[in-house]
């Protein structure tokens, strides 16, 4: 297969480090798979929106559409032995790490076939066997956790790294600074990836951060600013960061990206930003459209071939939803499983049930 060299949309900006080259190597099949995978993610999130509106998904639900290039670009440069951890906006990271649509939708709908058997919900997806450690609901908490994964990788001499994803809002959390200091002291292979979508809920970055230059916020830790809407730039940055971190310790990547949806389903996403801003990004920076254009300019596929892919993707999503809907709710006994690794012992279960109301037999009867 021929290699294609593409220039990133904008140059990287480095903090205390020389940035990598703007020229990124790719291949026709890689570009086509970028197109397919990002379209799949986009479609999944749009479908989740509908499922939410038809009340099949409950509670919080944070969609990733607009940010797909970050998930895909990272994945391209690393292996499943490298680890990723993120916040609640986790559906697409899960997918990128090899999770299936059926498991994702089942989890969203609280079904048995879900990746967390319906017990976690939208914010708590995991795929440990391919290095995805969740899915965390507390803003900022995933960063020390991710540095801990990196600690373990180094401890076990695995030669792998961890990417901890967090938002621009999360970037002000004190625990990031604490974890970064420790990671730097211990040379952990920890890469902090700030997905700067410019808003933390309804708060614009500059209202939450005196210095919204997140790639510089590590102070003594090097950083790189990356166009997070350009999957090839993300790919290049991830490769660069992984190499750096294995040799030298932590590094920050700031991904300049955008979420099209509101923060979560209760937020229309239009009170604190203009519709023009959103449509401007869609028109000029959309990560899928950028790849579509590259495919056209290198004549790797026709418009109708790409439409076909989009149709396939749509069908895949629809099929997955149909299958997920068939999955039953968790068995009631699951209420009491997984609290501990070994489940409750008999005595403990008795205690627990007692506390829970002496006669809630429907639950109690089926315990061990």
């Amino acid at each position, binding site marked *: 297969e021929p290699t294609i060299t593409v220039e990133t949309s904008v140059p990287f900006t480095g903090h205390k480090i020389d940035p990598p080259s703007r020229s990124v190597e790719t291949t026709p099949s890689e570009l086509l798979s970028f197109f397919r995978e990002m379209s799949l993610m986009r479609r999944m999130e749009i479908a989740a929106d509908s499922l939410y509106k038809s009340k099949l998904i409950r509670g919080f639900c944070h969609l990733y559409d607009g940010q797909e290039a970050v998930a895909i670009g990272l994945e391209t440069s690393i292996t499943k032995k490298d680890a990723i951890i993120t916040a609640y906006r986790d559906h697409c990271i899960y997918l990128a790490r090899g999770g299936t649509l059926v498991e994702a939708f089942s989890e969203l709908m609280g079904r048995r076939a879900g990746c967390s058997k319906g017990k976690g919900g939208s914010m708590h997806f995991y795929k440990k066997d391919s290095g995805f450690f969740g899915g965390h609901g507390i803003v900022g908490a995933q960063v020390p956790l991710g540095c801990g994964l990196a600690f373990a990788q180094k401890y076990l001499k695995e030669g792998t790294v961890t990417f901890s994803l967090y938002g621009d809002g999360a970037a002000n959390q004190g625990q990031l600074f604490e974890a970064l200091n420790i990671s730097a002291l211990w040379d952990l292979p920890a890469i902090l990836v700030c997905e700067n979508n410019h808003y*933390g809920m309804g708060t614009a970055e500059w209202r939450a951060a005196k210095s919204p230059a997140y790639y510089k916020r590590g102070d003594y830790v090097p950083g790189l600013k990356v166009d997070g809407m350009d999957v090839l730039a993300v790919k290049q940055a991830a490769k660069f960061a992984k190499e750096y971190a294995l040799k030298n310790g932590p590094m920050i990547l700031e991904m300049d990206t955008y979420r099209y949806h509101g923060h979560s389903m209760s937020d229309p996403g239009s009170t604190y930003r203009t519709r023009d801003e959103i449509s401007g990004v869609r028109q000029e920076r959309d990560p899928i459209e950028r790849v579509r254009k590259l495919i056209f300019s290198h004549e790797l596929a026709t418009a109708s071939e790409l439409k076909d892919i989009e149709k396939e993707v749509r069908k895949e999503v629809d099929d997955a939803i149909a299958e997920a809907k068939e999955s039953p709710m968790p068995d009631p006994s*699951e209420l009491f499983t997984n609290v501990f690794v070994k489940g409750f012992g008999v005595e403990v279960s008795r205690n627990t049930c007692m506390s829970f109301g002496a006669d809630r037999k429907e639950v109690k009867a089926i315990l061990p």
Partner: protein
Amino acid sequence: KEITVREALNSALDEEMSADPKVFLMGEEVGEYQGAYKISKGLLEKYGPERVLDTPITEAGFAGIGVGAAYYGLRPIVEFMTFNFSMQAIDHIINSAAKSNYMSAGQISVPIVFRGPNGAAAGVGAQHSQCFGAWYAHVPGLKVLTPYSSEDARGLLKAAIRDPDPVVFLENELLYGESFPVSAEALDSSFCLPIGKAKIEREGKDVTITAFSKMVGYALQAADVLSTEGISAEVINLRSIRPLDRATINASVRKTNRLITVEEGFPQHGVGAEICMSVVEESFEYLDAPVERIAGADVPMPYAANLERMAVPQVDDIVRAAKRACYRAVPLAAAA
């Protein structure tokens, strides 16, 4: 007239801010966004950005700043988007706020309110559903309030803001939209409820049911069901978990001789356990049946709708427990 709990909270904030220029509100999205749950709607416009402050998502930082401002004599209201996030700031609530008046022998008082939704919402999973009532009420120096109705919300929030001590004010997201009738008196800007006093929501003679926050509504529903079966339940809305109104609880149990405690939080070392203890301490000989505790299941909150429903008390659980208590007399004590 009926108003929602949201309106009750909003009007309480508004009135107290207008009454005392030292009162200000800070928290995530309280200003331009009008509050994540719209509790602070209109306040930024009315009181300006000096008194309604949007903060970054840094609970330890802004709660600490709030406590410091209270040391200096201001009256901060710190909103946690939900109390789950108060764990990031809990050292300031406990060590900086609750203990300072004592450690300084009264020099440093801390007139601050920490407020926001607490406990289970709907479908938000394990990290966003914890009830912090028992935790905060464990700690001397704090007052812990748990409003149920719109009247509670108004009267207790106004009391909390005027109080010279740190108050943890635990709201419930699922109640925000609920409407309750309120008296003209309760709508008056001078209205205020006493801290540390429970409210008997419904009088009864056969069994006492204690509850707080959303569970008061469940207890009242259970009392309705029980009355159709000839059981007269007395429902106590605790309103304050710390101080706990032991007098009202014990007086009721001395009358009904039976007690059911209801809470959504985890059972162990929970509110029900303390109420049981307080009745055993003061009114043991009046108990005709074991105290029954209805609590959240002793598991992190699951997401799936069926499991979630099982994880929190339902009206029917309260009804069954009350019946059990009423139909079972206490056996004579075993010989010593």
